[in-house]
């Protein structure tokens, strides 16, 4: 187990900067997710931690020791790849045993360790099979066992669930989290899937274009995103964003105006999450333009004077029909307002329906 510190770490290939100078601290035993779209530098960061890529600058510390120059094979890091990367010519047993060959294990202990780890991830009945004779989920477990068998001080998971089908992904999510709790190993998960990140991780590091956008607990990123990027990336269906010109305590959006609590000037973007918009007797007028049942919720597309909005309503049967005239209500404290230029959130500013919009009921 280890406490991981990144101090001004950066990685560039020639002129292309993959990871801009980044500071990070990950506590011993923590489960952290690095979340971001493809090409944001999350896998590069992971490979630097594994020792596969050498950082261009900065310092990387495991438990206070600088490991920049330590080779991958000496870092005692377990890693699970998206493609599993099992050795195709070895049986499951040989695959799991492989990392132990390079460690000082007391004679006769290694086979036991393999069996123990196989039991932990429930692949003990496949030990004599080859990877090609296993399903995706079983290969995934073997990859986990191979990463865990040597009791690594750090476990790295690179998009481990993206090759699994939806149901399996759900159960593996829970299993990996439980496994991490049981072993207590410091774990870093790289994913582009926000649900994976929010369900599994204690903390999420949200990255975009080589930069860390925000670090925080899942609910922080959801409720108090630092930037428009984080707000748009976290939450499904995605947040409604409306851009307009702010003049002190009001912002004109589309054909209408919203009041601002707090003060902002210039171009701002107002974010309204679909789940924070409710149908009401009075409020913002609109007309339903589309209905998308999502199982336990219905997503309505509503045309309003502010612009088109996605509205989420609980229930499995639509209670409203297309073309129906509706009114929408939202609580000002649920709104997010971002500066138009920097895309940073203005923490003390919220949006509310203007008095005259309410009165038009």
């Amino acid at each position, binding site marked *: 187990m280890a406490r991981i510190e990144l101090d001004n770490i950066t990685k560039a290939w020639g002129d292309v900067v993959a990871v801009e100078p980044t500071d990070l601290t990950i506590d011993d035993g923590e489960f952290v997710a690095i979340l971001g779209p493809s090409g944001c530098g999350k896998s590069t960061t992971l490979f630097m931690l594994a020792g596969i890529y050498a950082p261009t600058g900065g310092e990387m510390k495991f438990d206070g020791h600088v490991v920049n120059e330590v080779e991958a094979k000496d870092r005692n890091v377990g*890693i699970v790849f998206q*493609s599993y*990367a099992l*050795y195709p010519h070895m049986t499951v047993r040989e695959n799991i045993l492989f990392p132990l060959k*390079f460690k000082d294990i007391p004679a006769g202990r290694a086979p036991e360790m393999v069996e123990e780890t196989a039991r932990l991830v429930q692949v003990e009945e496949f030990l004599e099979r080859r990877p090609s004779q296993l399903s995706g989920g079983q290969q995934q477990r073997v990859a986990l066992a191979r*990463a865990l068998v040597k009791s690594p001080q750090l476990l790295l998971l690179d998009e481990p669930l993206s090759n699994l089908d939806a149901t399996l992904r759900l159960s593996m999510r829970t299993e990996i989290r439980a496994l991490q709790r049981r072993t207590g190993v410091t774990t870093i998960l790289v994913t582009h899937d926000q649900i994976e990140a929010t369900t599994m991780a204690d903390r999420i590091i949200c990255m975009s274009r080589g930069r860390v956008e925000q670090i925080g607990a899942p609910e922080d990123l959801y409720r108090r995103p630092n930037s428009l990027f984080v707000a748009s990336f976290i939450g499904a269906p995605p947040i409604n964003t409306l851009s307009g010109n702010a003049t002190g305590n009001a912002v004109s959006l589309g054909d209408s105006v919203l009041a601002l609590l707090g003060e902002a000037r210039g171009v701002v973007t107002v974010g309204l999450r679909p789940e924070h918009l409710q149908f009401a007797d009075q409020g913002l007028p609109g007309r339903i333009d589309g209905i998308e049942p999502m199982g336990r919720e219905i997503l309505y597309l509503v045309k309003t004077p502010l612009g088109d909005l996605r509205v989420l309503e609980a229930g499995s049967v639509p209670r409203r029909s297309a073309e129906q005239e509706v009114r929408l209500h939202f609580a000002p404290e649920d709104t997010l307002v971002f500066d138009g230029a920097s895309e940073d959130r203005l923490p003390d500013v919220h949006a509310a329906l203007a008095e005259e919009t309410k009165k038009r009921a």
Partner: protein
Amino acid sequence: MANFALFLGPALVLLALFFVFPVIVDIAIAFTDMGQTLQVKEFTTKNFERMLGGDRRLSMALGLTFIYVLGTLAIFNVTFGLVLALTTTAIPDRVGSFFRAVWLLPRMSPSVVYALLWAWVVDPTERGLLNQFINGAFGFEVYDMMNDHPMMLIILANGFIGASMGMIIFTSAIRSIPEHLFFAARADGAGGLHIVWHVILPAIRWPLSFITVYQTLSLLVSFEYIWLITNGGPFFDTTVYALYVYQRAFEHGQYAYGAALALVLVVIGIAAALLMWRFMDMKRLLQQPRIEVQ
């Protein structure tokens, strides 16, 4: 039917003309007494009796061929080719490509030029490249490889060319191993040699077997560099089987005996290929690979 003739026709004609027909002619001549006059007086099996009976040079040629093929194959065409592929893929790509290009140069140069270069390299006076080091730089006696170790010379000369074929095939095979497998092995604690042994070699078993079989066959029948560099000498010390066939048929005009010898060489080649096929379990290696999920 018309399409069939159009598409397959040219290939079939070429195949018949340059492969099937010569084989039939060879078999036919092997059972005659055709000599320098190209006249056939009788059909006979005495060529084969001669091979089994009293041709002492034939058994010597067989022994030399065995040493030559095995030596070139084991030292250069497979082992050194593999070493070149491993080293040139381990270093930065541009440098690696440069070295591979250098090792391809002999294959690109005309064989006569290449043979002349070797003749100069092993020239038994102080002017020879090798002797400029041995004699000029280190003061040892002038070394005459052509006379003292002629077999070593033809193995070296053929090996320096032969290694590039394996190098190219192995390089592309190593390149096609998924990158993550190397990453995984490094994270698992494997060092460079462990990665070669546990990841690379198992992944390139098929090309390894292929190069071994293919190069065995091509070494069995090739003699142009030997002919150009030593011409089978000194005495008959480098007269390998294929060269012996050539000498018998075209230098001594014993066409029928040459044809019989060639026929036996074909049989030896087929037997060797089939044996290795079985031994290396190539049928299993040929099985359709499963599609890799990336």
